[in-house]
């Protein structure tokens, strides 16, 4: 069974609208990483969350980690075409090595 679920799988929003992407873990998170990916390109690191209740922002993107450290949300305010891409969350479950990834959320921002 999938241990890291992302929702929605895809999202189409009109420019200027807000949106939220969720990432739910079946296990307690030691760290949660958010990435953005353009098609055919590498992953661009956005933010990393470690503490329960933590919230970080970068420009118009805000990410939160819930108190129980099993769910994270990524919120984009006033979306722009430049926000389009695939958003991936990566989980550190404390194994000491690789991140485990969700399947990603494909975001399209229409004019």
């Amino acid at each position, binding site marked *: 069974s999938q241990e890291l679920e992302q929702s929605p799988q895809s999202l189409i929003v009109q420019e200027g609208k807000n949106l939220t992407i969720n990432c739910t873990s079946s296990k307690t998170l030691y760290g949660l990483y958010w990435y953005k990916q353009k098609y055919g390109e*590498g992953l661009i*690191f956005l933010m990393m969350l470690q503490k329960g209740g933590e919230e970080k922002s970068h420009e118009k993107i805000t990410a939160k980690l819930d108190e129980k450290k099993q769910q994270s949300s990524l919120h984009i305010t006033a979306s722009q075409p430049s926000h389009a891409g695939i958003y991936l969350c990566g989980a550190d479950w404390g194994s000491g090595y*690789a991140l485990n990834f969700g399947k990603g959320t494909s975001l399209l921002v229409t004019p």
Partner: protein
Amino acid sequence: SQTIHQWPATLVQPVGSPLSLECTVEGTSNPNLYWYRQAAGRGLQLLFYSVGIGQISSEVPQNLSASRPQDRQFILSSKKLLLSDSGFYLCADGYTFGSGTRLTVV
């Protein structure tokens, strides 16, 4: 901060041909290195990881192998490619990723 270099960016190879993808790391020493494969709609799948020179762990049985001949070099190889080896291959050091190699096996 570290930088991950991958090449080539794209590759089209016939079935049965060999493969060698290279990844090098700048800005850090003795990194843990990882090879992931990304197939459409399936997220990133960890293939191999290495904690040091000559130390390779495989996460899934497959037609591929990895080697780490130098501290900052990680190589993904195959002796005979299969159609199912097509995908986007990413090298990573912790949570920093390279720009990837898109492999199409024809």
